[in-house]
């Protein structure tokens, strides 16, 4: 029978088909762990006298609570330190591999997995973190789970799950210059809404998706959850294989050939049908930015702040009223007139080396707006090292940005990197919820190049707005 990519990966992981309305029991190839959602899971194991079934399919790292400066000193916040210490103790007691703060392989869990070559096409990946959808960029079925499920996977290496529905998101054509993967996904979420993907696995396809690098694909799959979808996937191709090959945990020798042969079969059959299909024309897309307090409240950067009356249904009207009040925005204001206090460049959405390169390229030869604070935070310690080898850190520092250590940083208010009440940020992260980046903080989600242009002009801006603000610098050195 003709199948979609998601259905193929699902079928290859069914340990036991559910009968009489029972869920299927699905095998989990890889579980990633971090300090926030694991303590209660390990505690549950202890209480029941259970042990992890497959230690060789678990990997822990520290990211949410970790500070991004002075990492050689004890963590000042006692509750954060306790949570990190708890993860370290649990890893030691149960024998789980861990990459702690200060380790070269520490970083945001969704940056570390792919970087080590553990994320591969066709596998199932879970983590107690909704942005696990990131790994779907490889053609893996990857989704976030709650702490009870983390415990379940530790104990059984499986999860009881009902099959998801499938949705095709086809992005035809090619992106215009200055338009990026982030703009595609923000446009997708604005189109289908924050609940539009509920119950679905999204499969991104079409020319514009094929043309993206692995890192761009990760940005897109990362935010599938923001459309309410459990997972997002992209069929693996040569771009995927090239990215995986040679990484520390990638298959080698004859194993590699066998793996690639299997991976090539992981594509939706020609005559397979999706439960829902959405089509987007890439050449119609512009740099996208959110104006509200959920990721679906976004518009092209050339638009103006909408009014509640612009929405037809009552629910959206009320949501817009609440959002405008929280964001302190007046309908009709051009989005490009909105001043920001902070630019945050980082997170599991846009904290990879290509993101940092794109940011660096946009600021090159230009000066930071004097009233804007700019934080550049690599997604992992390896990304930081790579950026330093390429000299990007020197460009960031010369521009007047802060160059930080790896972690989730200002994406969420769990570590010292937070907005103050009333502060406004252009952020390359994934959520603009009320208080997400700090109590009372206001977030506009943007791509790395929009973040960079905004850092120069002080108001939400696209790279094309920079023409004429400074002489373009010479071509990049590396």
């Amino acid at each position, binding site marked *: 029978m003709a199948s979609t990519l998601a259905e193929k990966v699902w079928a290859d992981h069914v340990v036991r088909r559910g009968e009489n309305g029972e869920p299927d029991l699905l095998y989990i190839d890889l579980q990633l762990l971090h300090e926030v959602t694991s303590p*209660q899971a390990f505690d549950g194991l202890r209480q029941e006298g259970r042990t992890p079934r497959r230690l060789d399919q678990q990997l822990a790292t520290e990211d949410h609570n970790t500070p991004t400066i002075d990492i050689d000193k004890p963590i000042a916040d006692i*509750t954060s330190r306790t949570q990190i210490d708890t993860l370290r103790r649990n890893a030691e007691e149960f024998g789980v*591999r861990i990459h702690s703060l200060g380790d070269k392989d520490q970083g945001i869990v969704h940056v570390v997995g792919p970087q080590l070559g553990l994320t591969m096409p066709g596998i199932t990946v879970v983590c107690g973190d909704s942005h696990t959808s990131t790994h779907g960029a490889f053609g893996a079925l990857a989704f976030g789970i709650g702490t009870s499920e983390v415990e379940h996977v530790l104990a059984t290496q499986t999860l009881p799950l009902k099959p998801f529905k499938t949705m095709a998101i086809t992005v035809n054509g090619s992106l215009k210059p200055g338009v990026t993967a982030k703009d595609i996904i923000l446009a997708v979420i604005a189109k289908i809404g*924050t609940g539009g993907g509920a119950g679905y696995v999204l499969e991104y396809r079409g020319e514009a998706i094929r043309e993206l690098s692995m890192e761009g694909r990760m940005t897109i799959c990362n935010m599938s959850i923001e459309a309410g979808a459990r997972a997002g996937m992209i069929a693996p191709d040569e771009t995927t294989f090239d990215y995986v090959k040679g990484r520390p945990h990638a298959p080698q020798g004859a194993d590699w050939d066998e793996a690639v042969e*299997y991976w090539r079969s992981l594509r939706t059959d020609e005559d397979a049908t999706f439960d829902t299909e959405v089509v987007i024309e890439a050449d119609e897309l512009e740099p996208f930015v959110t104006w509200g307090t959920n990721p679906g409240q976004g518009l092209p950067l050339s638009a103006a702040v909408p009014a509640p009356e612009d929405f037809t249904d009552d629910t959206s009207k009320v949501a817009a009223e609440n959002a405008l009040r929280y964001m302190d925005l007046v309908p009709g204001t051009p989005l490009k007139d909105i001043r920001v206090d902070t630019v945050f460049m980082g997170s599991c959405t846009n904290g990879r080396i290509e993101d940092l390169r794109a940011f660096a390229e946009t600021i090159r030869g230009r000066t930071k707006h004097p009233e804007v604070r700019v934080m550049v935070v690599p997604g992992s310690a390896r990304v930081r090292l790579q950026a330093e080898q390429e000299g990007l850190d020197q460009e960031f520092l010369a521009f007047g940005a802060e160059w930080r250590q790896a972690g989730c940083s200002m994406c969420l208010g769990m570590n010292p990197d937070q907005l103050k009440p009333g502060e406004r940020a252009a952020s390359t992260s994934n959520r603009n919820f009320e208080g997400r980046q700090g109590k009372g903080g206001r977030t506009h989600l943007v791509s790395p190049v929009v973040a960079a242009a905004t850092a120069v002009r002080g108001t939400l801006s696209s790279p094309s707005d920079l023409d004429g603000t400074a002489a373009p610098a010479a071509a990049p050195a590396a």
Partner: protein
Amino acid sequence: MEAFTTHTGVGVPLRRSNVDTDQIIPAVYLKRVTKTGFDDGLFHAWRTNDPDFVLNQPAYSSGSVLVAGADFGTGSSREHAVWALRDYGFAAVLSPRFADIFRGNAGKQGLVAAQLSQDDIEQIWKILEENPGTEITVDLAERQVHAGEAGAVFRFDIDDYTRWRLMEGLDDIGLTLRHEEDITAFEARRPSWMPKTLPARIAEG
């Protein structure tokens, strides 16, 4: 997990859609390593800053059935959102649509996530707001909500398996371990090149 059949308690009308898990419990409360005591973080920003917020009104403050707008529990996978609702005293949440992960987490912790139509939710909001403090009954066996003195009855959706587990109060891990032989047989069939985190390999340099 305690078995759930029916629950009666004060209904709380939360007239908001897209109540994300950062609103249910802010990230700062996620630093704890325990599984209980999260009630103080529930809807923290709204309870602290908005005197009109529904749980700040005495008639609703002891509520145990939350009646919310669509797309409840979106965003982060934090099970702490369910723990906070449960610790505050909520036994059930009613909404036209739940985020998938939230609904799954609720089912694991004995919190009923009941899906009703938008129209029914609007009607229940009216009933609760006309007589603040009105009790409503969530009958899991019959998949019904009973609200108000006029005895209005609304049907809700919840998947059969979750309903059965909640009514039996069953532990998921125990259920799965009944099939341990199947898991072992599956593992024996897996290709050797599937990812292994141990022994650890890292890049040079």
